[in-house]
């Protein structure tokens, strides 16, 4: 059982405000730049502009889940509760972007493919990733003991991360037995520049979001420790 020790870590380092504003303004700039500079696509016309939000959202989703995996492994290895809080923060931000990726993808898919959803490997594994995030966050909200919550959610996060490539592989197999997917076409430079700039902007925004959430999580945990100490009658806590 977890000891009711007060947090051994001082107050968290606050996320710098300039990072938030910088990321936001950079994001505005890269969006306008990408939309203004890219010509209409031969097949999709201006629908192609969806790429500048959809692809970066997908990229930061996977990056955030990578953070969850690494932080969870670190937590199980070192028992550092800050790693647990970082994993939780990354999972929250990741699930937000994962949901955004799915919705944007559907909005893009409907006019392009004629359907809202297609059961291909990429779509299905992104959906499964979203469901795993949802399960991870529900588990956290249903377990009170902080130590237990940390251990359990780390295990769920790691197993979930193992599962994503397996889902991808199995769905790919499932699909190829039924029909062959079309390959995505190569990207010409005038699109690529806008895409790369937006990837950078989304990454900065994600770092800002996770940092802010982590800061809040640290204060929440400190409050939890203080409440626990008070309940045990420890006036020094």
């Amino acid at each position, binding site marked *: 059982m977890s000891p009711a020790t007060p947090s051994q870590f001082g107050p968290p380092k606050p996320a710098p405000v300039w990072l938030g504003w910088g990321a936001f303004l950079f994001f505005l700039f890269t969006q306008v730049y990408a939309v203004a500079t890219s010509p209409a696509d031969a097949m999709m016309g201006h629908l192609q502009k969806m790429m500048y939000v959809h692809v970066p959202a997908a990229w930061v989703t996977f990056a955030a889940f990578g953070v969850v995996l690494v932080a969870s492994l670190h937590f199980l290895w070192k028992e550092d509760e800050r790693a647990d809080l970082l994993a939780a923060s990354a999972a929250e931000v990741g699930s937000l972007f994962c949901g955004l990726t799915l919705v944007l993808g559907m909005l893009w898919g409907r006019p392009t493919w004629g359907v809202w959803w297609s059961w291909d490997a990429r779509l299905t594994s992104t959906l499964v990733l979203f469901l*795993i995030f949802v399960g991870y966050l529900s588990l956290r909200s249903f377990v009170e003991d902080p130590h237990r919550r940390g251990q*359990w959610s780390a295990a769920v996060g790691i197993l979930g991360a193992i599962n994503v490539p397996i889902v991808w592989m199995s769905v790919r197999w499932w699909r190829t*037995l039924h029909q062959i997917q079309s390959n995505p076409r190569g990207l010409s430079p005038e699109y690529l520049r806008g895409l790369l700039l937006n990837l950078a902007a989304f990454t900065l925004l994600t770092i800002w979001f996770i940092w802010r959430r982590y800061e809040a999580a640290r204060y929440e945990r400190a409050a939890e420790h203080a409440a626990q100490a008070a309940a045990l009658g420890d006036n020094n806590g």
Partner: protein
Amino acid sequence: MAFRDDVRRIKAIVWKDLTTERRSKAGFNSVASLGVTILVLFGLALGPDGQALRDAAAGALWLAVLFAGVLAFNRSYQVELEGGALEALLLYPGSRWAIFAGKLIANLIFVLLMLVIVVAVGIVLFQVRIPAQWPTLLGIMALGVVGIVVLGTFYAAMSSRSRAREVLLPLLLYPMLIPVLLASMEATKAFLGGDLLNASGAWIQMLALFDVIFLVATFLAFEYVIEV
């Protein structure tokens, strides 16, 4: 020597869990009845056309096993918790993985017995034509059940000790089981359809691979899940 002790521990836990089930029988009867009920509901949703039923039989069977099995996994720990027995179990000397292995084997036997009933009813209700190489089909069933039970036993160790265990276990378990279920359903479907494309062999290999991956991963992670 130590390993032999672990084997004895595993045997003791399997025997304990199965004896509890055998003496009450209420658990097994209700779970098996639920499996049959789910099959009937699938039949109503998909039937009454014979060909449509046969095409959907593999999927319906696996989902019935999954939905009923989920109840068994939570039960397996809930019985322990009611008597405060899990803490005593953890206090005994010896490796923790032996507890997991014991629960796993007991759940495996439980679900396999349920599977016999569900499959027998499913074959009748869904008008399945049993293929000549039916022993392979038994192999597919066994591999699929191993996958479901491994992950189910692992996640139930957490969900059964949290608030809202009824909703938490399916929420955590179903997305994790997608590869295992997909492989089981496709292998079964290919097999029942006469396997014209020779697809079932590849699916069986994948299923076995998934079983091994999840078995190793859960055995490694169980230590962290059960200790708190």
